[in-house]
């Protein structure tokens, strides 16, 4: 059998699946990125946990720049529209701090067709599929194996960095 799964499992299954829609981004962030511990944010912090904040949002900025580029391309294809919101799905394992992404998005969007657009972030929980007993949602930092029987399981979600949709306001014909 695949060793490790039973022995190193330390946390229990979260009720994430049921509660995900009611969970605020801030809750989500506290759950997945407990700052001050061994934080999986962008890890300049990892070098020295006591060091001052040194542009830790750079990872989010890289992602935000790619997002703005992709969303702008999509917006262009829609013609003469205004983008009021950008919807993204971000996996729990993608190491993104939502507030840092929002901050970076606003910076990256400035001067583009996305200026002023809202960023709507849908967190995607980590889930695995176990051959023996189905699909389960995992808690943060939980080993990638079946939380019920401890057997091996395939990662089903959690690494998403997806541009889900654009919220568009059409400029209706001549209304003047």
């Amino acid at each position, binding site marked *: 059998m695949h060793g490790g799964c039973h022995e190193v*499992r330390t946390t229990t299954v979260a009720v994430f699946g049921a509660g995900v829609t009611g969970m605020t981004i801030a809750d989500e962030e506290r759950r997945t990125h407990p700052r001050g511990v061994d934080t999986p944010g962008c890890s300049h912090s990892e070098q020295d946990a006591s060091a001052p904040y040194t542009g830790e949002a750079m990872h989010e900025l890289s992602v935000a720049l790619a997002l703005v580029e992709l969303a702008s391309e999509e917006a262009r294809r829609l013609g003469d529209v205004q983008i009021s919101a950008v919807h993204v799905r971000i996996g729990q394992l993608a190491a993104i701090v939502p507030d840092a992404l929002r901050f970076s998005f606003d910076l990256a969007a400035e001067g583009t067709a996305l200026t002023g657009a809202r960023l709507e972030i849908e967190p995607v929980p980590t889930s695995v599929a176990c051959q023996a007993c189905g699909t389960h949602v995992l808690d943060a930092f939980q080993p990638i194996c079946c939380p019920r029987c401890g057997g091996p399981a395939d990662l089903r979600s959690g690494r998403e960095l997806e*541009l889900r949709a654009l919220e568009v306001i059409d400029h209706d014909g001549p209304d003047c």
Partner: protein
Amino acid sequence: MTARIVEVRQDILKKNDLLARALRSRFEEAGVFVVSLVSSPGAGKTTLLQRTLAALRSSLRVAAVVGDLQTDNDARRLAEAGVPIRQITTGTVCHLDANMLEQALEDWDLRALDVLFVENVGNLVCPASYDLGEALRVVLLSVTEGEDKPLKYPTIFGSADSAVLTKIDLADVVDFDRDAARQAIEAVRPGMDVLEVSSRSGVGLEAWINYLQAMRTHAFAVGTH
């Protein structure tokens, strides 16, 4: 004025993925085996790479691209091995991406190489999201970092093909539990190959070199069918 939702459903890093795919086929066509190394800062990537280049250069044409936030210290240390070294200075960006690698490879004749190493910026988070087109991604974990690190950074271990426990000569000194580390790796990446190496004492280096050669042979055996 009407608001509507337009579905897009595309990976935000799609551009990088496409570029990495193009690089991967370029590497395959050129017959160069590309190995990337990822780890925390200070886990011993550069030292292991130095030893690896020295061990391989008599039998294979090797080279390395090294990513660094600012200094060129790593590149200078590596250049002592007497093989081609190129540096990518990322500034404030905490990872290499396919575009940076492609630019670093510009005007480099890949056909003149057998193995190309890519040393990523020291970071266990961001590199996980960026495919570089490598054939083999190796994550390094030094014994001084603790056995449970794979559980804290499952994504980078999930994105890698093999793991190397470095500074293994210090295992007893720092009370490092190898079995616990192997179990943690197995938990986040079932079936992953795990090697143990000390660049200082040389323990495990031969096995690591043999492993690289076997993976290279395997990659080309698969590639030609």
